């Protein structure tokens, strides 16, 4: 419950303050959000599986974001930023979907 409240609090702060993101950081924002979502769904699934570990969650969240941003950065430098972004989105998207599928199995037995 507390993490959910924290999440809502963070979203609220972000929406209310609307801090200006520097231009050089903007291309990484969407991909970082996808990576973060992947970490969140992984965590929820781990909680439902009964094997949640906060350290693993924090590390996987941070490393997901950093690696995703790095891939996009590298892609931009190599001139294939769009393709690499698509690749990252596809991989993380598949993970998110199967995590959500297993969360669904836990919650609804369906």
């Amino acid at each position, binding site marked *: 419950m507390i993490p959910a409240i924290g999440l809502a609090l963070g979203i609220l702060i972000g929406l209310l303050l609307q801090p200006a993101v520097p231009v050089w950081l903007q291309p990484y924002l969407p991909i970082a959000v996808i990576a973060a979502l992947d970490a969140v769904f992984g965590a929820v699934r781990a909680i439902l599986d009964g094997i949640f570990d*906060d350290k693993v969650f924090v590390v996987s969240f941070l490393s997901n974001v950093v690696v995703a941003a790095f891939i996009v950065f590298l892609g931009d430098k190599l001139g294939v930023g769009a393709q690499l972004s698509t690749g990252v989105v596809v991989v993380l998207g598949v993970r998110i979907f199967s995590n959500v599928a297993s969360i669904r199995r836990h919650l609804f037995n369906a």
Partner: protein
Amino acid sequence: MSLLTTMLQRPLDPGYAAAADRRETAGMPRATSLRAPRLILAVVLLGLMVGVAASNLTASDSPRAQARKDLIAQIEDRRTQVDELTARATQLQTEVADLEAQQFGAVGDLERSREVAATVGAVELQGPGFTITMDDAPGSSADEADPNNPEAEQGRVYAKDLRFVVNALWQAGAEAVSINGNRLTSLSAIRFAGPALIVDNRPLTRPYLITALGDPARFPADFADGEGGSYLSTLRGSFGVRVDTKVSKELTVPAAVGLNLLYARTGDTGDSASSTATPERSSS
């Protein structure tokens, strides 16, 4: 396919299972508490990221749209400026003409001055003549045409078409010609910049309306029978360019704006008629 299978079958970070196993062997519960401070911190950070991303990415004006808007505003600004300056120039030209009339009223050269001014395009003219309206073929104009289909551009009115038609008009005996209200003079040029047509440094917008004054009995017929007429019918028949000609008894051709000569001079000094009537009442 093993990459896809691993991706689909074990999407959960194996680190969770490993950590759980480790804790179990150490005699602790498999799952940790959800109240660890670093967890809360990470979650707030995550929410912040999502919120910031949401507010930034839904911001209505991307920099590109903003720049576009700025440019459009600039264009409109400049256009109003041009219109204002044009109006002012026309007004000043009328003033000059009036002053000339006062000056020459006594000397008696007014008639000649008027005539020359009319010929070079310094005054507005009325008379019989006809108009030609030309427009791009349906579906071929710059904003409609499929950029991947070079065929579509063939139905466009090009600068060379206007040039040809105007030359044919002069040839058929036109005495004054204007395109979209821009009087053609001895200083005029019909050019293009990309898909835009430009007359005397002013961009034209479709449709293109050419007004020509001339002998009502012969001029329209001469034009239609000559090169101009056949050129227009080719444009219409082969490329679908919309062409519409209309003979009229009373047409107006506006005065030209900016008849300024900077370097060319009349050779003589004594003949008052030629030195006063030339359009060099400019910068100096």
